[in-house]
């Protein structure tokens, strides 16, 4: 029972506490709005039971002002809660800039996580307490949903695009982490735990977890292995856009549009290269859809992001 | 003849509008093109509904029945614009 209240419903973040307060407020409102109905129906059923003598004179069949008031007053009360709740919701779309960036990939039926340092884990996510963490979510196959009850947060993971979830866990401990969106046969066992550690413990965990270099470094290896450098490298003779200094900048496309080179753009350019072709370059890039998984793509994106401040054509290595 | 003449006129107008929409598509691009083509389509549809389908001789209730679905369709399309334009 104790585990039920900590592992599942514990308040692992300030946001969780705020949601609980909001929920309690709404529960009180619900009781206030419905109690009159319950009490009056029962009371009337007893008092005005057929055959029982009672004062039934001056019964009214309509009263517009009464009806308008019991339509309007509950509505106005809920509007106040709407403002409160929507405020909390909008916060979820504004991760702090300094947040620790972690990648998550949902696939039937497991969760894979990548830390910036290159540490990878399955069905377990270690994060430091007190620090904002923004999780970039990708799906390898169907829609999943990353749900951590103790954070009162969930976000669907939609194939074909990146969604984000950010939180700041306060209390060290282990919390349930599950998939909330039905995703096929083993949906019910697609879960694990979120381990919130003190920053020192987290640093120790990072050091102990084996890694083949940072995520960007792993991306750089892939970049060579998959032959990306053959065209996008400095020494290449193929006319392909350079990737140094690309991330976060506007990219003019062949069709005249201008898009920002964000994570989603980089992902789409690797998996659906014909969708958004950069202006001035031939549309010759092959798709890597059946070659690279979402995890590899995330590594490549991390690598390209690491080049954000490098000079085009300059030695970045 | 009194019933036939308007039908023929409307038919000629419909063909003219078709020519106009094809012509517009050759000249205009982007949003103006979209607006022009949908406006012309709307006009053509209105002519068909009003004259060929004889909605002009029906009462208000029947008109609401015939056109109500358009309103509901606009709800669907409107929300899609809201989501896709701000996602």
């Amino acid at each position, binding site marked *: *029972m104790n585990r*039920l209240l900590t*592992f*599942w*419903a514990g308040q692992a973040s300030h946001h969780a506490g*705020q*949601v609980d307060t909001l929920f309690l407020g*709404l*529960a009180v409102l*619900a009781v206030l*709005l*419905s109690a*009159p*109905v319950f009490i*009056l*129906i029962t009371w*009337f*059923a007893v008092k*005005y*039971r*057929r055959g029982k003598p*009672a004062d*039934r*004179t001056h*019964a009214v069949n*309509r009263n*517009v002002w009464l009806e308008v008031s*019991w*339509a309007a007053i509950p*509505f106005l009360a*809920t509007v106040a809660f709407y403002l409160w*709740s929507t405020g909390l*919701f*909008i916060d979820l779309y504004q991760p702090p800039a300094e947040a620790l960036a972690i990648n998550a990939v949902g696939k039937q039926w497991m969760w894979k996580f990548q830390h910036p340092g290159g540490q990878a884990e399955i069905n377990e996510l270690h994060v430091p307490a007190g620090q904002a963490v923004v999780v970039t979510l990708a799906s390898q*196959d169907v*829609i999943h*949903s990353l*749900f951590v*009850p103790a954070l*009162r947060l*969930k976000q*669907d993971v*939609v*194939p*074909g695009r990146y969604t984000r979830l950010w939180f700041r866990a306060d209390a060290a401990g282990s919390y349930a982490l*599950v998939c*909330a969106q*039905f995703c*096929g*046969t083993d949906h*019910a*066992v697609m879960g694990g735990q979120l381990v919130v550690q003190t920053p020192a413990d987290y640093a120790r965990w990072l050091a102990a977890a084996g890694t083949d270099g940072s995520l960007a470094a792993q991306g750089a290896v892939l970049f060579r292995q998959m032959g990306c450098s053959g065209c996008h490298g400095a020494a290449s003779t193929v006319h392909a856009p350079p990737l140094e200094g690309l991330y976060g900048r506007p990219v003019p496309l062949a069709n005249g549009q201008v898009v920002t080179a964000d994570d989603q753009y980089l992902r789409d350019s690797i998996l659906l290269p014909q*969708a958004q072709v950069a202006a001035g370059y031939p549309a010759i890039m092959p798709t890597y859809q059946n070659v690279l998984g979402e995890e590899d793509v995330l590594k490549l994106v991390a690598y390209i992001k690491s080049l954000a401040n490098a000079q085009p054509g300059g030695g970045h290595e | 003849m009194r019933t036939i003449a308007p039908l023929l006129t409307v038919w000629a107008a419909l063909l003219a509008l078709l020519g106009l929409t094809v012509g517009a598509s050759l000249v205009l691009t982007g949003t103006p093109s979209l607006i022009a083509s949908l406006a012309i389509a709307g006009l053509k549809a209105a002519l068909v509904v009003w004259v060929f389908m004889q909605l002009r001789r029906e009462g208000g*209730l029947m008109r609401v029945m015939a056109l109500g*679905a358009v309103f509901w369709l606009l*709800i669907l399309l409107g*929300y899609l614009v809201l*989501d896709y334009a*701000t*996602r």
Partner: protein
Amino acid sequence: MSEATAEVSYLEHGHSLKSWLLTTDHKRIAILYFLSITLFFFVGGAAAALIRIDLLTPEADLMSNEGYNRAFTLHGVIMVWFFLIPSIPNTFGNFLVPLMIGARDLAFPRLNLLSWYIYMVGGLFTIAVLVLGGVDTGWTFYTPLSSMFANGNVILAATAIFVVGFSSILTGLNFIVTVHRLRCPGMTWGRLPLFVWSIYATSLILVLATPVLSITLVLIAAERLFGIGVFNPALGGDPLLYQHLFWFYSHPAVYIMILPALGVISELVATAARKPVFGYRFVAGSSIAIAILGFLVWGHHMFVAGQSMYASAVFSFLSLAVAVPSGIKVYNWTATLYKGHIALDPPFLFAMSFIGLFVVGGMTGLILAMLAVDVHVHDTYFVVAHFHYIMVGGTVSAYFGALHYWWPKMMGRMLPLVWGRLSAIFIFLGFNLTFFPQFILGYLGMPRRYHVYPAEFQTLHVLSSAGASVLGLAYLLPFTYLLYSLRHGGKAPPNPWGATGLEWTVPSPPPQHNFHELPTVDGPPYQYPVEVDGEREAAHG
């Protein structure tokens, strides 16, 4: 037509199978629907029983993961499209709308029969899905799971729902035209029974929303068959577009399921209190308001799906607005009871339990509409509990209330009131024991569609399963005594409850053409008191 034939009831008018299967009498078609819907209710209920038995323990003991997924998918598909949506409109709506408005039949009697046949063809497809091993996508058929990954009979199931959709459209169309065109002299809109108002509002949704589901299912089938996929992310398509189209239908479909129930309750409350419904205009108007506002809130199913934040904020706000007309109805029913002459007969007990459960379902719906809370409880048992309070606590209670209330009219036999009261009470208790623990489970974080679950949740699940067994038996109970009453129940007088409404002015069961002479209405609805002629005493006997 001579006096003698006019007195023959619709039940006595021909006994051959053909006289039933080729009938165009709205009352007989209502009975056909009643039988077929009851069948599907028990098939869907059996799936629910399997689910609840399996959830007694945290491990997978009764079914495999795959088997469990198929069980809840089938439960959802059957209960939504083959029980809830046709339940009240196609049985009681069919039977009562012409009687209530003083007409001899629906506007298109043959179309009505065709609707039933289409429903049965859809039903056969569903049975085929069941026999061939089921389908494993959930009733929501989310892409790309349904279109690319699921290995069940998705196309067959989509076909079943596609087909039954046409039954819905044609039925809705029939009701709308009937209400517009066949009201008897004096039956103005302001005099229509509230049940007719709610059926009218429901029909609007049936006609306008169902086709969008049909085309969406076509797109899913095309994606599976030919790789034609606008929802396929591997091709740059958008899975969320599917959700938009699906919920554009499926949220209004929730109102298809609950609106007729709201209409039933208005009738039951007025009769029980022997008083006009308080604020007739508000109650009637709120049905139409629900039907229209119901189209504006579908995005509240997608708050965490990845739709735009702004869309979420708008959908959340409008979801609060749709609660207003529902609230009006509940408060107005309460006011109707004030200074009434309330009889605690079975229909009223069902109505009371409806109001209680609907209020809980509605209030939790309000909570779910709040964005920050929904982020936590979306796709958990909280949602499961919420919509079962509306669909089962609400619609099914109203369905049973209607069954008890109009049974004497439909079958010409009285039912044992004591047993009726008992089953109303048991259904209420069993229902709450089943579903209230699920609110707690949900807030604690138990996701829906989980077949194996952490041991900590077992206590609440066992409570829920215990409640489900009470509920299951309580649902069986009425069918036994109602069957019994067909043979042994006392003959029903025309108006056993002392109610207003044209349906109570004709004999029970009504003659084949309803009215010997078309009635004329010259006053507002619900004009109590009604002369009862000691008939209710006969009912007790």
